[in-house]
């Protein structure tokens, strides 16, 4: 399958601030890629480079087979963009903005426009600041989804949407995927990414730190184990193979609690059964946990991690 987006070794600095520091990113045609990262990690900068709004300092960027900086007008016919921070012109109504953006992209699907307005419960006759943040966001979402394009670039599109609209949005994105459209979905709402995305790319400090399917990534995370044993687990963690893969071990008589690298789950459970397991509670890894493991640390104790993760 060819790639809708491929980025390698992307660098971008603003003055002394390094926004992107060797980012790589691949979006395959027809997939929904979740682009995850905390505030200020470089998601929007990456998207602005992909849109040809920013000029990369270094690196390879291909978008729909073209150069986003040079071939801007041809490429933009084939993509639609929803910014994370939607500002509308104060003297234009929402309906006018939807029509204008659609026409500038090369045309709107009238039926889809009407259907989306209805589904998102959006009043197109209000103007500019009369819309709430969520409704401004909806104007941009409807304008993008009603356009006939190959690629959707969505930068935190649901910030400000209520849970009901979030569900509507997820349904709409699934429909887009079923029609064969490619979606780059930048987000920090993990449930949304888990629900929608085929693959996930996690970035931190302007660099991709993790990419793969949700299954792949879960494999790299830790599972929490709480067990009631027949006898105290004396010497359970003495062997190096066990010691290196479990974390936060707490033993209280015959109760044991620890986190285990999911890849070593089999070995650890085998060893645990030697003490006679009476009851066992395990918590499966969530994307949230994965996310927190990448971000909930200061850069110093982050450094040995890449070896451990590979």
């Amino acid at each position, binding site marked *: 399958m060819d790639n809708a987006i491929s980025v390698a070794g992307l660098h971008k600095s603003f003055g002394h601030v390094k926004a992107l520091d060797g980012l790589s990113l691949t979006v395959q045609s027809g997939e929904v890629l979740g682009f995850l990262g905390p505030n200020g990690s470089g998601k929007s900068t990456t998207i602005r480079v992909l849109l040809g709004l920013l000029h990369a300092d270094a690196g390879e960027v291909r978008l729909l087979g073209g150069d986003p900086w040079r071939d801007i007008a*041809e490429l933009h016919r084939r993509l639609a963009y929803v910014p994370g921070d939607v500002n509308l012109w104060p003297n234009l109504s929402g309906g006018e903005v939807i029509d204008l953006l659609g026409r500038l992209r090369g045309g709107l699907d009238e039926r889809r426009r009407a259907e989306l307005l209805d589904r998102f419960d959006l009043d197109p006759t209000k103007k500019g*600041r009369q819309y709430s943040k969520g409704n401004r966001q909806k104007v941009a979402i409807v304008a993008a989804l009603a356009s006939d394009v190959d690629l959707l670039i969505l930068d935190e599109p649901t910030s400000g949407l209520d849970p009901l609209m979030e569900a509507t949005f997820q349904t709409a994105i699934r429909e887009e995927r079923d029609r064969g459209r490619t979606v780059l979905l930048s987000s920090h709402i993990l449930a949304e990414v888990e629900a929608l995305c085929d693959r996930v790319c996690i970035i931190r400090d302007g660099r991709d730190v993790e990419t793969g399917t949700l299954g792949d990534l879960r494999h790299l995370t830790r599972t929490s184990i709480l067990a009631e044993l027949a006898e105290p687990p004396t010497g359970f963690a003495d062997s190096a193979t066990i010691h290196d893969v479990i974390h936060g071990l707490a033993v209280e008589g015959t109760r044991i609690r620890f986190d285990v690298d999911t890849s070593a789950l089999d070995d650890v459970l085998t060893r645990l059964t030697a003490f006679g397991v009476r009851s066992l509670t395990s918590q499966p890894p969530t994307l949230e946990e994965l996310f927190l493991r990448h971000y909930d640390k200061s850069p110093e104790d982050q450094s040995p991690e890449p070896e451990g993760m590979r």
Partner: protein
Amino acid sequence: MSDRRANPLVGTRSLIRLALRRDRVTVPVWIVILGLIPSSAAGAYDTLYPTMAERADLTGSIGANPSVAVLYGPGFDLSTAGGFTAWRFGGFLALLTGLMAVFTVTRHTRAEEDSGRAELVASTAVGRFASLTAAIAVAAGASVAIGLVETVALLATDQPVTGSVALGLSTAAAGIVFTAIAALACQLAEYSRTANGIGSAVLGAAFLIRAVGDSSTGGRWISWLSPLGWAQQTRPFAGERWWVFVLPVVTALAVGAVAYGVLRHRDLGIGVLPPRPGPARAAARLASPFALAWRLQRGALIGWCVGTVVSGAVFGSIANGVGDLLGDSEQSRDMFERLGGSGNLIDAFLGTIAGTFGMVVSLYGVQAVLRMRSEETTLRVEPLLATRVRRRQWAASHLLFAFGGAALILIAGGAAIGLTHGLRTADVGGGIAEMIGATAAQIPATWLIVAVGVALFGFVPRWSLVAWAVAAFALLIGMFGPVVDAPQAVLDLSPFGHIPKLPGGDVTAAPFAVLAALGAVVLGAGLVAFRRRDIG
């Protein structure tokens, strides 16, 4: 209800500090430049008019000329440096200080609401009136500071104390009146741009009312309807009339009270007039960057056209009076020549008006160019440039209004001057042709200023607002440079100084060609830089 119990002014002091922090460059620049103008003019008076005979003659000649009074107001006593300065600059200082007040109040109230930042501030522990009060305090404080610098600088050049104090106070009072007017405009307008438009329109009307009053023999009372007229009627250095200061004070208090009354009942972010719903579908023609630019720029363009045509008609209708009253006084001719006119007095007067139009319309052009920057900083341009609209198309759609609009306004203004002047001289066709020629001659110079704005936007977008300073600099040189006896090298910096004086002057192609070529180069370089730079 709650504001009866809670103090509605809580947090004002913090907001004043915030406003001063944001204005730490703009406000001091206004204060220093406006504050120092009168003393520098007073200093040049002795050089310009060295003999007592010349000085004594001034009041009776140009001081009494209604056509001159259109621009500068009545000359009460021009035989002293102070009196001459007050006449020559008093009105403009009041006008420019009023402009500063309008922009300052809007920037810290409605513009903040438009950006959404006001909500953030309003959600903290600040009272309902804190934001408006802080804006008023800063604008009124800056007005007083301008007056104070004027007074101190005049005293430093050994001008009489009473006159120096009166001139400073007259400027400060005008600034305070327009602070109150802007405060009210901010409550009525739907957006900050409208608020600035209302404030500027009131200023323009105040200038025109005063101009009409001062130039008509039977209708001098009309000037008393204008806050700018009051500034001059305090008669600094010419038998000060302190009671006149009652008028601005009472007006400011009354208008300010209405503003607070409206604010009490107004929702944040919305004007008093209820917002009307817009169309659910866009008109078929709203399908190009140009169509969007028209929607965004048309209000300013129409407003400027109307303002220029009205003032052009007023100036044109009184031009013929210059000759009637003065004959060929050497003094007046000398003065108009210093201002940029030449030949006979009527031509000199018309030439001065045409030149002033050129300089003032460059402010429109700068405003139209800077619209691109505000589209960029509000992130509204990003979704547009993410469609198949190219950067150069988008820039062209706005620059059409900046350059074409400026030319259109100048031609319309020239036609209006020519029409009313032509009606007086019974040569409408000739008058219109002549005056369109005179204002159209300014276009290359106006365009050069606008092009500098484009270059700033292209090369150093963060410094785009410096374009205002460039336009203001040309305006200051053109209006005040000759009177303060500025060196020729400084006068030559303004592109308007190189335009032949029309009507009446000799037209050669060279200055137009040079200015146009320079403008094209600057514009082209700016556009190339814009295409290559980062957006945002």
